[in-house]
Every structure is written in structure tokens, then in C-alpha cells.
């Protein structure tokens, strides 16, 4: 809403204007300071990953790529990177498929039942990660004990089959949060969708499946892709849940990085961190672009993040 400034000529209004510009100036400074505060750590990680020093992280010794070379030839880093990527992709595929299915299914369930699912969706998003982490750890080790007991009983003298925590446990735990995330994204898109196209499709005797394939799905696609990318990012960056339910040999990059902090951060850690940042930022940029295009097409302001979306619905 534009405010007409031409009619402010009497002295009181002048005083108001000076006050306004003072407040405006202060807010501007405040905002700039916070943006610096938010980005400084990211910049610091990247800058120090190029440090040519031989040992101490903050001992600046010219630009060099040697820590990247060292990090990328480190077999442990390679393995952890592979773990992180594969866990992230499987998690994202499952969460996107199941979240989208649930968003579509929720349109068809009775209102009361929908309330029940809504409650669970929000609980899974806002409950502290550590509570989810420890609860799933308890569940998985209970399952592990039961299953191994069962396998031992049927092994009949031979070497029993054994299950342990591993990539599967991290994936199962990550999908819980990400499924809810995708559900919210897709549902927001569904509610902003033009129903008349669907009605028209039915009027032209298209089957429900065909209507979904040709009308609904293309309209949902940006939200689905964004959900996929955000799910991957979450899983790729997650430390808390992974640290509880990771098994032997399923260490991910965040676990590696946290482990390094105990021994003192080296520029190699920073190089690994910078690689992670680049991966995340690339994916985010694509996701943001898709969501931005989606909201421009629908004409609405559109929530820029799932969190903003949660906030908007609150």
C-alpha cells in the first residue's frame, strides 16, 4: 500500500518524518548486521578451506587447493560421501513418493481422520530431533534384538543371519521428517490448484488416472521436485538423527566432520565442509527457482520455505 507523502507539510508531520527516517535507518543497519552475522560463518568455512597452511587452520599461508586434493583422495571421506549421497537419494525418493501420495490421499479421507493426520504431521516436524533420534534408536535396537534372536533360533547350528543398524536405519528415520515436509509442500500446491481443469477433464470423460497424469501431476511437479531436493538436503546435512541410529560402516559426512572437531579442525575438514556447502547450495538454488516459478505462475506470494509454510498455516 503506497503512502501518500505529498501532503505532509505541516511541522508535526515533519517531526514524524524525521523520526521515521531515523527508525528506517536503524532498521536498515540492523538488517544488514544480521545478514552479515548469518553469512559470516559460511564465508569463513569456504575461505579457510583454501588456506595453504600446513597445519593450523587459522594460520593463513596463501591460497591453495591442496586440502581439497587431500580430502578427495582420503578413502574415509570418499566412503562417507558415498554413504551420505546414497542415503540422501533413497530417503528423498521414498519421502517424495510417500509424501505426495499422502497429500493426495488426505483429500479423500473424512475430516476427522484428516485432523488426526494433520496432528501427526506437525508433531513429526516440530518435535526436537533428539527425541525422535533416541526413540527410533530404542525401536531399532528392539527390532534388532528380536530379529537376531529369531535368526539364531532358526539357524540350527549354522552361522545365523544378523541384522544391525546401518544405512537402512538412518533412511527410515529421515523419511519420517521428510515425508511430512513433502506432504505440506504438495498440499499447499494442491490447495492453490485450479479445480476447473480437473472438472473439465472429467467432463471430457477422462479416467481418474488419466486426469491425474495429464492435469494434476504436471501442476504438482514443481512442489514435488522441490520436496525431493529439500529432503535430500535435510538428509545430507543431518547430524543429530544419524549420530544416534548410524551403524558400523554407515558413517555419513556430518558424522565425520563432527568427529574431526573433537581432534581439532584442520583445513581438510573445512574443504569437506565447503564441498558439502556447494552441494547443498546448488540443490537449494534449483529448488528455490522451481518454487519461485511456481508461485509466480499462481500469482500468489507463496511461502518460500516449508517452515514459512508451517508458519503461514499456523
Amino acid at each position, binding site marked *: 500500500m503506497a503512502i501518500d507523502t505529498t501532503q505532509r507539510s505541516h511541522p508535526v508531520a515533519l517531526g514524524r518524518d524525521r523520526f521515521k527516517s531515523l527508525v528506517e535507518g536503524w532498521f536498515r543497519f540492523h*538488517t544488514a548486521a*544480521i545478514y552479515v552475522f548469518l553469512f559470516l560463518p559460511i564465508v*569463513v568455512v569456504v575461505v579457510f578451506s583454501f588456506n595453504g597452511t600446513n597445519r593450523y587452520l587459522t594460520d593463513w599461508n596463501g591460497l591453495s587447493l591442496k586440502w581439497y586434493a587431500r580430502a578427495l583422495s582420503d578413502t574415509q571421506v570418499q566412503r562417507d560421501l558415498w554413504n551420505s549421497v546414497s542415503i540422501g537419494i533413497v530417503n528423498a525418493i521414498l519421502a517424495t513418493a510417500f509424501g505426495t*501420495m499422502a497429500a493426495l490421499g488426505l483429500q479423500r*479421507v473424512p475430516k476427522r481422520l484428516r485432523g488426526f493426520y494433520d496432528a501427526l504431521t506437525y508433531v513429526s516436524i516440530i518435535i526436537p530431533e533428539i527425541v525422535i533420534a533416541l526413540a527410533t534408536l530404542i525401536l531399532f535396537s528392539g527390532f534388532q534384538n528380536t530379529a537376531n534372536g529369531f535368526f539364531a533360533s532358526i539357524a540350527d547350528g549354522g552361522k545365523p543371519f544378523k541384522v544391525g543398524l546401518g544405512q537402512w536405519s538412518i533412511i527410515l528415520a529421515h523419511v519420517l521428517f521428510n515425508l511430512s515436509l513433502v506432504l505440506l509442500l504438495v498440499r499447499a500446491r494442491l490447495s492453490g490448484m485450479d479445480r476447473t481443469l480437473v472438472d473439465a477433464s472429467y467432463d471430457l470423460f477422462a479416467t481418474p488416472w488419466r486426469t491425474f497424469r495429464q492435469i494434476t501431476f504436471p501442476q504438482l511437479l514443481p512442489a514435488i521436485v522441490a520436496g525431493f531436493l529439500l529432503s535430500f538436503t535435510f538428509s545430507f546435512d543431518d547430524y543429530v538423527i544419524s549420530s544416534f541410529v548410524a551403524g558400523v560402516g554407515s558413517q555419513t559426512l556430518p558424522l565425520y566432520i563432527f568427529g574431526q*572437531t573433537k581432534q581439532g579442525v584442520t583445513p581438510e575438514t573445512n574443504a569437506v565442509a565447503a564441498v*558439502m556447502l556447494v552441494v*547443498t547450495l546448488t540443490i*537449494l538454488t534449483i529448488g528455490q527457482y522451481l518454487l519461485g516459478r511456481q508461485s509466480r505462475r499462481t500469482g500468489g506470494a507463496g511461502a518460500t520455505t516449508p517452515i514459512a509454510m508451517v508458519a503461514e498455516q499456523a
Partner: protein
Amino acid sequence: MTSDARAPGRVRSGLVTGLLMAPATFWYLVLLVLPLAIVVIYSFGVRAPDGGYQAAFTFDNYGTLLKRPGPFTSSLLIAVSGTILCVLLAFPLAYFIATRATKRKGLLLILLVIPFWTSFLIRTISLVIILGSDGIGGFLSNLTGQNVQILGTMWAVLIGIVYNYLPLMIFPVYVTLERLDRTLLEASKDLGAGRWATFRQVTLPIVWPGLITGSILVFIPLMGEYVVPAILGNGKIFLIGNVLQLDFLSSRDWPAGSAKAVTLIFVMLVTVSFYLWATNRGRRGREVSLL
């Protein structure tokens, strides 16, 4: 169409709905409700000799907790002060963004989203350099001539927490401010209200739901935080999250840990309900709720 023809269609439609909801139902019931129920049951058990859980029915885990509430009070203190700090920092920023032109607004919001979605862990580790002896800590030491240590103090944890959770406060406040109809402010001014009166009687009631939502979104993860104190606290700051981590992964005293987790959930439920009750009391307008 006869009712006979419709009946199989309805059955099939029900089947489709069931199939669509099946995976989500599995995850919610088996990986959310069931584990939380087990945590409640475990909290009444005792530690098995080699760690883990042994069935029992005792309130001892809760008793010990009441005797040593240290980490809980630290967590509450950090969570409350962190939330207040976030409110104070988020409001001017959200207001600034909300009053920009549309294009600039989008850019500023995206710039907020980027750090929020990049690794929490990496950004927190980076704060070690920034606050440490080669960064602000060292700078302050040189300035004052004394040995100023920021790392390992509650201040470091507070900075780390505000740094990580501020966007959660900014988004909801921004959303409500965006809806604020500027003509109301003009009207208030025209009716002779001062700045403070306008803020208190027009702006604040409109922004209030956003502030409450933001506070809850920030408060809940703050209560369970353990990465920030683990990294910036130098092992000197123990919040409830750190104690939970020790109980589960180091000493493997699962019943004691479960009792703490149940208490944590309970404290959060009570605080959040009280918060919502206190804000909704006597309000007739839009009710504030999380769901």
C-alpha cells in the same frame, strides 16, 4: 447409474485412498507413535547390567531427575533467553523486509533461506573460529588486555543458538507483518494516536500471532538442543540434550534417558499450552494455535 453400479466404484475408491495413505500411516504409527510409547514405558524400567533396558516398574528415574534438575534449568534458561533475543532481533528485520518492494523482498527472503538450509553443523563449527582466540575472543582480549574467553560459556551457546534459530522467528513474524494493512496505521495517526499508541494498539495485535508462532518454533528445538552446546560449550555447558546423548550413547542407561526425554516432552507441552492459553485468554479475534 444404479446403486449396484456405484458400490464397486466406492469400494475401489476406498482402496485407492487406503493405498495412498498406507506408507504415511506406517511411518507415523511405527516410527513416531510406537517409539514414543516405548520411551514412556522404558522410563519406568531399570538399566540392564550391560546397558540398555530391563523391565521393571519404578519411579526412581524420575526421582533422580528431580534431585538433579541442573541441565533442565540450564535448558529452560537458554531456551527462554534465546527466544526473547530472537524476538528482539527478528522484529526490526522482518519489518524492514515487509516494507520493501516486491522484488527486493524476494531476494532478502531467499538470502535468509540459504543459511537456514545449509548444514547446521558446519555453520556452528565455523563459529568456533569466529568466536575463538583468533576471532572475536582474541580481539576482545587484545582490546581489554584481559583473557576474554567466549567459547565454553553460556554466551557462546546463546550466540550459536540465536544464529541457528533466528530464521524460524523471522518467517512467521514477516508473514503477519506482510498482511498488515498500512491504511490502519494511517487511520490511527489521523485519529490522533501517537507512535507508541499506534504500535501498541494496531501493529502489535496484528503481529502477535506471528510472534507467538515464532516463539514456539524457536523454543521447542532450543529445549532439545545438543549440537550447539557440544561444539561451542567446550564440554562445560550441559543442557538436557547433552545429558540425553550421554545417557543413550555413552553410559547406555536407557531408562534414565527415557525419563528425561518424557520430562522434556512434558515440560514442552506444559510451556507451549500455557503460552497459547495465556495469549488466547480474553482475545476474541484470530486464535493462536500451532495446528
